[in-house]
């Protein structure tokens, strides 16, 4: 078994005529955090979606603990959490219901866990409110609560600090630090650098 946890080897991906990922390679160990930067259209979101198996690269492969993730994509999916641009929340459900259905599909969650994690992300008061009545920042906090509940070793985050105030950005840093402390791995696509509190950050810049 490889000492590196996540190995990305020479990923190439085209969207029509556009060569979006041009031979992306990196390796990450336990507790590592990779910050992916690049201008709009450089392929940050595409890279995250390719890593989690939503998009198929024309060349290259992704290895987890030395195993090609394509060998059993469903098993790999149980190990990762992907948070896209928009929080995956239903406007007509309350924050609590959203977490119940979203996270409940993946793992058994006790009601007290929801309360605890919503308190942890500063959204305790949002639990029984319809998501359509929440601000963008509050929605992001609820999504972060979901992320924390998933308890998986690999986090793929697309602009995790979007719409968050200073406290919210510190919260993202704390969550990433906790994930690193558990030996988890984090990859975050960002326009603005991750909060400085996050330690041992590696950088990958994608060219447009």
């Amino acid at each position, binding site marked *: *078994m490889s000492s590196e946890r996540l190995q990305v080897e020479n990923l190439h991906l085209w969207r029509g005529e556009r060569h979006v990922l041009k031979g992306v390679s990196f390796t990450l160990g*336990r507790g590592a955090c990779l910050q992916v930067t690049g201008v709009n259209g450089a392929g940050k979101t595409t890279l995250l979606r390719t890593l*989690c*198996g*939503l*998009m*198929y690269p024309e060349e290259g*492969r992704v*290895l*987890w*603990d*030395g*195993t*090609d*993730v*394509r*060998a*059993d994509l*469903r*098993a*790999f*999916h*149980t*190990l*990762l959490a*992907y948070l*896209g641009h*928009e*929080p*995956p*929340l*239903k*406007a*007509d*459900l309350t924050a609590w*219901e959203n977490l*119940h*259905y*979203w996270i*409940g*599909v*993946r*793992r*058994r969650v006790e009601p007290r866990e929801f309360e605890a994690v919503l308190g942890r992300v500063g959204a305790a008061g949002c639990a029984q409110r319809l998501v359509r009545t929440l601000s963008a920042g509050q929605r992001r906090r609820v999504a972060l609560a979901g992320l924390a509940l*998933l*308890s*998986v*070793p690999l986090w793929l985050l697309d602009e995790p600090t979007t719409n968050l105030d200073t406290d919210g950005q510190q919260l993202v840093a704390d969550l990433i630090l906790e994930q690193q402390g*558990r*030996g*988890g791995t984090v990859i975050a696509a960002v326009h603005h650098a991750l909060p400085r509190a996050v330690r041992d950050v590696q950088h990958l810049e994608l060219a447009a």
Partner: protein
Amino acid sequence: MSAPGTPTAEALAAAAAAAPASGAMLATPTPALAAAGLALQRDLTLAFRKRGQLVQPLAFFGMVTLLFPLAISPELARLREVAPGVVWAGALLASLLALEFLFRDDAYDGTLEQYALSGQSLTALMFAKTAAHWLLTGLPLALMAPLAALSLGAPTVSLPGIVASVAVGSVALSLIGSIGAGLTLGIKRSGALLALLTLPLSLPVLIFGARATQLAISGGPLLPPLELLGALAVLGITLAPLAAAAAVRISLE
């Protein structure tokens, strides 16, 4: 496909099983049936919060069946002749109306992505969503069909047969529709394309359903066409969720 020398799928599955303990991340995975139950429950909850969307297909069905007596003739004997076709064409089009929403909102807000990455069977989750669609559209249409049939001159004795045929047939319609809804997911204004894809596949259901309704009205042997509708529904349950899941995966890429 893994390259020579790399561990196999079993190794990845073992890594997945070992991950919680190795990373102090303890979580009990949700059983597949419970996960599908949650997906079904979520769709039902959301539908009852947006009742306008729920009522639209039923209102459409009611309008279509009420317009026919005005357009053809108020004479019950003539209406009774066309009743099977009217009921089934109305039910088919009403079911189609609601299909456009089957996956669309979930695709916009990222729910489908989360389903695809949940580690659960996407086929089972798509089946749950289709079951919700039938409970919210097909079943109410079946319960409303007697009213439509009565307004078209069908005898009271035929009503149980009509309910049974629409109930069974609409299961097949929802399942066939789920494939079309998955395939047209990434396309803007996909309503017309969805109809073009779905209607030809729905023709056997329309033919057997109308025949069952006709036999129910005339007092003939209802069972053979009903059994054929049941066979179509079983075929749909077996194949359609697989095809819908594959279509959704392609649309997500």
